[in-house]
């Protein structure tokens, strides 16, 4: 009994003195389970890999586009293949206004490794108990989210937030992200290896473009773009991925998509790959403006 009391008092004291942990585990689990398993439909979907789910707020995109509900359906290392397209189809509300799909296409998202869609399938294959825990129980367990040791140490001796990866999970499917400190080169070494025996193949591009065409024929507006990243990252991707973006853009538009360019907008990346949340907010507004223009005057970009 004494030990139990000491434990409870100790725990309450810890939670009273400490702010929430850096990594919000229960929010993260809810976010991914909800994204993968919810049946809710939207008439504007944003799809792609981590540069999408960290780089675009669906809520901000539709701020000035009345009549639309939006969700960011990005996952880590997403690949544009039929499995992912079927998942997107299931979440698209085709009954309402002109449905819109915004595709953020990175070279990696067309590579064989990405096309395995490991992250998506890991989530999609969750057993019923894991889903139930994430969706219904986790929200009551947030006060039990764990801390990192250095986090506790820093917060006890000062109010200074520790170095680390900050991620805020939003209902619209966006993960507001930044790091302290930022390092615009940190992702580059791994990207130098990511295309080893893993380059883009013509047949996989064809599958992606075929789906764009099918969507267009179903009356869905398809917008595509290359997610903004650092020049160094673009250079690595262009030289190693085997994807020729100018050719891809032309094909994308031939298949009925509308390509959007965002040159020289001076976006900021915290790791050389993903957008800092401040840039993500700005980028989301830009996308929203472009979409609104296109809906109102359907001429090519």
């Amino acid at each position, binding site marked *: 009994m*004494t*030990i139990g009391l*000491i*434990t409870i008092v*100790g*725990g309450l004291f*810890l939670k009273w003195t400490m702010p929430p942990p850096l990594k919000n*585990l229960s929010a993260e689990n809810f976010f991914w389970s909800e994204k993968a398993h919810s049946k809710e439909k939207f008439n504007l979907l944003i799809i792609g890999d981590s540069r999408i789910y960290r780089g675009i707020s669906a809520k901000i995109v539709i701020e000035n586009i009345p009549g639309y509900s939006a969700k960011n359906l990005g996952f880590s290392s997403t690949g544009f293949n039929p499995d992912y397209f079927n998942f997107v189809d299931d979440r698209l509300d085709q009954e309402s206004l002109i449905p819109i799909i915004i595709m953020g296409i990175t070279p990696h998202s067309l590579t064989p490794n990405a096309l395995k869609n490991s992250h998506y399938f890991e989530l999609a294959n969750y057993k019923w*108990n894991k889903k139930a*825990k994430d969706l219904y*129980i986790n929200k009551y367990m947030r006060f*039990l989210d*764990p*801390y*990192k*040791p*250095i*986090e*506790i140490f820093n917060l006890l001796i000062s109010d200074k937030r520790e170095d680390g990866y900050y991620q805020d999970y939003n209902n619209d499917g966006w993960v507001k992200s930044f790091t302290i400190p930022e390092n615009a080169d940190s992702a580059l*070494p*791994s990207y130098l*290896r990511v295309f080893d025996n893993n380059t883009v193949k013509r047949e996989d591009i064809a599958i992606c473009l075929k789906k764009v065409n099918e969507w267009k024929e179903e009356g869905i507006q398809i917008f595509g773009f290359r997610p903004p990243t650092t020049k160094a990252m673009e250079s690595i991707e262009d030289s190693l991925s085997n994807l020729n973006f100018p050719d891809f853009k032309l094909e994308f538009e031939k298949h009925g998509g509308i390509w959007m360019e965002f040159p020289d907008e001076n976006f900021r990346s915290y790791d050389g790959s993903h957008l800092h949340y401040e840039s993500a907010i700005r980028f989301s507004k830009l996308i929203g403006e472009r979409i609104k223009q296109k809906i109102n005057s359907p001429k090519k970009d």
Partner: protein
Amino acid sequence: MVFNSLEFLIFSLLFFILWPIFKTRDNPRWIFITIASLIFYGSWDWRFLFLIIGSGILDFFCGLAISKLPRSRKFFLLISIAGNIGCLSIFKYSVFFAGILDEISLYGGYPLTLSNNIPEFALILPVGISFYTFQSLSYTIDIYKRKLEPVKNIFHFFSYLVMFPQLVAGPIIRARDLIFQLSKVKIVSQPEKWNAIKQIIIGLFQKVVIADNLSFFVDSAFEGKTAYSGSFFWWVVIIAFAFQIYCDFSGYSLIARGIAKYMGYHFKMNFNHPYLARSFKDFWSRWHISLSTWFRDYIYIPLGGNKRGLFMTLFLITFTMVLSGLWHGANYTFLAWGALHAVFLISEKVINTHFNTFIIWKPLRVFFVFMLVCSAWVFFRAESIPQSGEILYYLYNFSISDIGFIFFYINNLIFLILALLIEIIIYATQKSRMSWHRKNYPDLILIPLAILSIVFLRGEGQQFIYFQF
């Protein structure tokens, strides 16, 4: 369901709420343990139930036949061995052996494609198969050796075989230890219950605080997700793995022992601070004790042990250790791990035989044994022999490391320092430990700290490493 999950918490709460109703009478007790344990096991995959139930029924009747039919004793023992080893071979080793045969046939000029023709059901590895097959074999073998009488009640047998605390990752309990306990009703005293709860808490601490926090650092290194390298880096990685696997497995065993103790059953210790071993023989008397004693009693000693001359002894040590490696996994790396430990044991035996005792400062012996055990762990964790070779090269080429990895992984390495400190304190206080251990005041500080650590310092959930065996 893993021990550190909400589902298991609910399961065990329900179990212990109902336990007092069933525990006082034999049949209800055995049936309740069996059904609850099968529910626990079926939660992994209901298809696995057919195998364990089928395997159990076979051994139950083989046990009776061995006892009742003296002329056919050997025959029924062989049936039991064939059934158990057969299942293990099909579900665990078919892909591995098929691959070996394909390679051999290719060199021989008559290529086979056995690997591509393995039935789909044989590709699924039932959880805990290596543990419960050995446990079941110990039943029939002990009956054959007349060390045990077979039980007449099939639920009595199944309550031994499938008892959930130890079903999926050990310890491997000998039939003659547990079957007798299961036939009695034990009143568990309050101090025993408290000790059981403490074991569970310490086990959870080892698993979710130490092992799970180390896993991110170890996995990053072995999966090539880090740019760091060099001798110092890899030594830290392999020492971190040494503690990850120790705390993961020891933690699980402690939780299993604690749950069994709360039920009123005693499981023998499975780990006894193996990294404080002063020799490799000592290490194997401290590491996964239930498995090493199983191999000793059912393989090494029956084949002759150390009674047939030095050469035969050395051969049997090699054979037993390689088999032990194979038990852990169907990969050349596990065979290499077992073989390396055989080399260590043989070298130690030869040196001791010819130089009597190797007098050396004890802490240095502990350090030496630990470093070589860590070197062997490389094979255990690596994906392939080439990767093992590459890492061993880094370990011993004294190349420079960027120590920036310490700051990058500080949140993980803190738990390695904690694990090392705990072992050092235990080593330093070995003689005095028993006296303050009996006092209550350390519990007032350590147990709340352990619980708060389990809640607020837990690592991201990882499956118990030994579940893959």
